[in-house]
Structure formats: structure tokens, C-alpha cells
């Protein structure tokens, strides 16, 4: 089945820094979504982005479906950005697969 790999697995940054999180997938996908899981465990939608680029405030995402990757950019990090970031894909055979996540810790 399709493999979803996220990198880096862990990231520690100072408040105000920028970061780039990556999601690679091994086969073509119908959909891709980015989530933020906060320290209380709630999964929060960030982007639904099967292709192209989207921006929402300090966050933006780009998916290059033909090259099988997606990037999540976080600018001017805040402590509230801490948590785990997941990408989830829907494969061509309609299987939903989550990556293992990137754990982000923003230091004040």
C-alpha cells in the first residue's frame, strides 16, 4: 500500500522562527490534508490541499502531486503552534493513511 513519510520527526524552535515540514507519499493520491494535533489531543484542520498552494495567516502549504510531496510552512512561530503536525492522504484506491507526524516544540 501507499507509504506516507513525514520529516523531520521532531523539531525544536525558538519563538519567532520559521519552519518547513515535509510529507512524502509513495504513490498518487486523490486528496491530502494537514492537521495540527494540539497538546490536548484535538486534531485541527489546517489545509485540504490535494494540489497547489494555500495560505492561512502565518501558515501556508504546497502540494506537488506529480512529485509526490507536500510542504507545510509555519512563519513567525508562536508557542501555541506546539504540537504534532500530521499529513493524511487518500490513495488512488480510496485508503486513508496518516503519516507518523512531526512533533513541533516552540520555546518561549
Amino acid at each position, binding site marked *: 500500500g501507499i507509504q506516507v513519510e513525514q520529516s523531520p520527526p521532531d523539531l525544536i524552535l525558538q519563538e519567532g522562527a520559521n519552519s518547513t515540514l515535509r510529507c512524502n507519499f509513495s504513490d498518487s493520491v486523490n486528496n491530502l490534508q494537514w492537521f495540527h494535533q494540539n497538546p490536548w*489531543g484535538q*486534531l*485541527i484542520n489546517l489545509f485540504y490541499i490535494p494540489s497547489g498552494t494555500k495560505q492561512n495567516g502565518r501558515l501556508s502549504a504546497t502540494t506537488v502531486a506529480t512529485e509526490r510531496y507536500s510542504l507545510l510552512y509555519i512563519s513567525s512561530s508562536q508557542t501555541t503552534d506546539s504540537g504534532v503536525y*500530521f499529513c*493524511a492522504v487518500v490513495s488512488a484506491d480510496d485508503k*486513508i493513511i*496518516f*503519516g507518523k*507526524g512531526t512533533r513541533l516544540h516552540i520555546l518561549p
Partner: protein
Amino acid sequence: EAGVAQSPRYKIIEKRQSVAFWCNPISGHATLYWYQQILGQGPKLLIQFQNNGVVDDSQLPKDRFSAERLKGVDSTLKIQPAKLEDSAVYLCASSSRRLAGYEQYFGPGTRLTVT
């Protein structure tokens, strides 16, 4: 608009006992998903419903797990009997469409501890 509701939020049981979780999706969402998230891992899809029909239950351990969505709205996930390895957060999500164009919205989850 109310989000996805789940209950209970926490549950502690002993192994071999039974447990049930409840989920109420966002109003009007036809597709409902149950996921299992073990500590330190990404969510794993257990079962997906479209209205009251099962779309995908390929990763549901059917010898002990069951789920239903009788009226196409709320859903119940049951574990009987529970094992230690079932300790996890059980997440429910819903979306308005299946397949291409879906966008899932998650509930707060139920944290299950099996002792």
C-alpha cells in the same frame, strides 16, 4: 455549527471487559470515520461509513471490534473483550463527501486505558 461530539472522554477498564464509544457527527455529514491512535503514532482508520453503510472496515479487528451507524447519523464503536493493546485514543471524524473532495473534521476523542 456544532462540531463532532464524542463520549465518554475517558474510560478505564480491565482486560476482557467490554466498552462502547459514541459519536455524533457534524449535522448533514454523510460520512463517518472511526480511528485508533496509539501513543506516538498517527491515527489508523478502523472503519468508514457512508450514511449507514460500511465503505471500508479492512483494518477493523472484527473478532473483538464492532461498529454500527443504524440511522445514518450517530455511531457506536464497541470492543468486546478488550485487550491491553487496545489502550489508545479513539477518534471519530466526519465529512460531507466521500472520496475526492472530502475534508475530515475530528471530535475530541475518547482515551481508553485497559489495565
